[in-house]
């Protein structure tokens, strides 16, 4: 198998592009896909201060790596979730990467600063672990981006992530979610600007990017994600993709081009009902936001009577 660019030995075949790449040209391809996503969806301005949500996994480290290579001023933010040895290891990968690039890594420790961990929060709030984790991370990333004065918050959601979420939302016709499933969410109503520069790249491509560029990412899956429904959606979509290459990209990008606008009104109605959380000031549709309710049920400490900024600590940064 030969690289379609240089005819040298290829290491990866991308059926949906009918293309094979050597390590050098695969790396170039990934950067070009990110540049194109940023340009097509007007994601990031060259002078923006960028905060990357970093987990220590392949996607967040890859997007951080590509943004740094493209010259963006990108800091990372890692949240310690208190998931035992898994969190210890993921934090180590994030710190090691930041050190290797001379990049700034900010950290928030959920148990240390908010008094609960994800296993406890999940049980106390009767949410699935992934639900409690996603809720906590979204709240803390949003606040960190706003409190830190960042222009944009970057997440490592890739094409598979977006296609799986879309699949789930369509399966259950969650129209209010369909209206806001975009690669860019503008800053408004107390939320920071949020962008997903990896939407043109698959999960397999991101893992390959890390391997060919030598990024040491956390390979093991979170022990609390077993049975997660999104993994099931991804497997179902991959069964389709292997028979019909390009299906995931067509599903997602055709939705953006041809259908997303049709659901905009429902999301707008939800946004109009947002007000400030009585405890922390974050935008919410209820008196007390879901994060504060979760923390309270888990015996945590976020139930402040005045808005509390996220505490950022710099650990092991160069």
């Amino acid at each position, binding site marked *: *198998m030969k690289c379609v660019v240089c005819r040298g030995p*290829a*290491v*990866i*075949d991308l059926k949906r592009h009918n293309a*094979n790449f050597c390590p050098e040209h695969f790396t170039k391809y990934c950067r070009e896909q990110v540049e194109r996503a940023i340009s097509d969806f007007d994601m990031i301005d060259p002078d923006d201060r960028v905060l990357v949500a970093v987990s220590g*996994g*392949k*996607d967040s480290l890859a997007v951080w790596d590509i943004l740094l290579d493209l010259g963006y001023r990108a800091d990372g933010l890692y949240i310690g979730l208190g998931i035992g040895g898994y969190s210890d290891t993921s934090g180590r990968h994030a710190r090691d990467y930041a050190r290797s690039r001379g990049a700034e890594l900010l950290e928030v420790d959920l148990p240390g600063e908010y008094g609960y961990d994800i296993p406890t929060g999940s049980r106390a709030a009767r949410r699935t672990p*992934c*639900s409690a*984790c*996603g809720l906590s991370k979204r709240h803390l990333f949003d606040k960190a981006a706003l409190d830190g004065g960042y222009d944009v918050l970057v*997440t490592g*959601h890739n094409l*598979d*992530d*977006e296609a799986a*979420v879309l699949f789930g939302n369509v399966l259950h016709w969650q129209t209010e979610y369909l209206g806001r499933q975009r690669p860019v969410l503008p800053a408004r109503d107390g939320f920071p600007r949020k962008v997903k520069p990896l939407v043109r790249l*698959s*999960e*397999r491509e*991101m*893992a*390959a990017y890390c*391997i*060919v560029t030598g990024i040491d990412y956390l*390979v*093991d*899956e*979170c022990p609390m*994600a077993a049975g*997660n429904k*999104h*993994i099931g959606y*991804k*497997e179902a979509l*991959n*069964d389709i*993709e*292997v028979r019909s290459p390009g299906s995931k990209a067509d599903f997602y990008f055709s939705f953006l081009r041809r259908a997303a606008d049709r659901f905009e009104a429902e999301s707008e109605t939800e946004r109009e009902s947002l007000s400030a959380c009585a405890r922390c000031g974050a935008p919410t549709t209820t008196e007390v936001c879901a994060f504060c309710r979760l923390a309270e049920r888990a015996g945590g400490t976020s139930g402040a009577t005045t808005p509390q900024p996220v505490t950022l600590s710099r650990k092991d940064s160069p």
Partner: protein
Amino acid sequence: MTDTVLVRLRNPNRETDMAAPVLVSVLLERLEINRESVLVVRNGTIVPGDGRLDPGDVVEIRPVISGGAS
């Protein structure tokens, strides 16, 4: 000299031997693994679908799917 490839799998971690030589695409078919959901790695290098695995090789079937709601 063994006449098999040692295959290391994850989630859960386990090992199995497969007759060699064998193409990566054939190996994945025998293991009933969707090629979209993994990479095959030998000595830190990705081996493409038409790559041949020889007796004595040790390869990792690295899953690429990660979970969690967005």
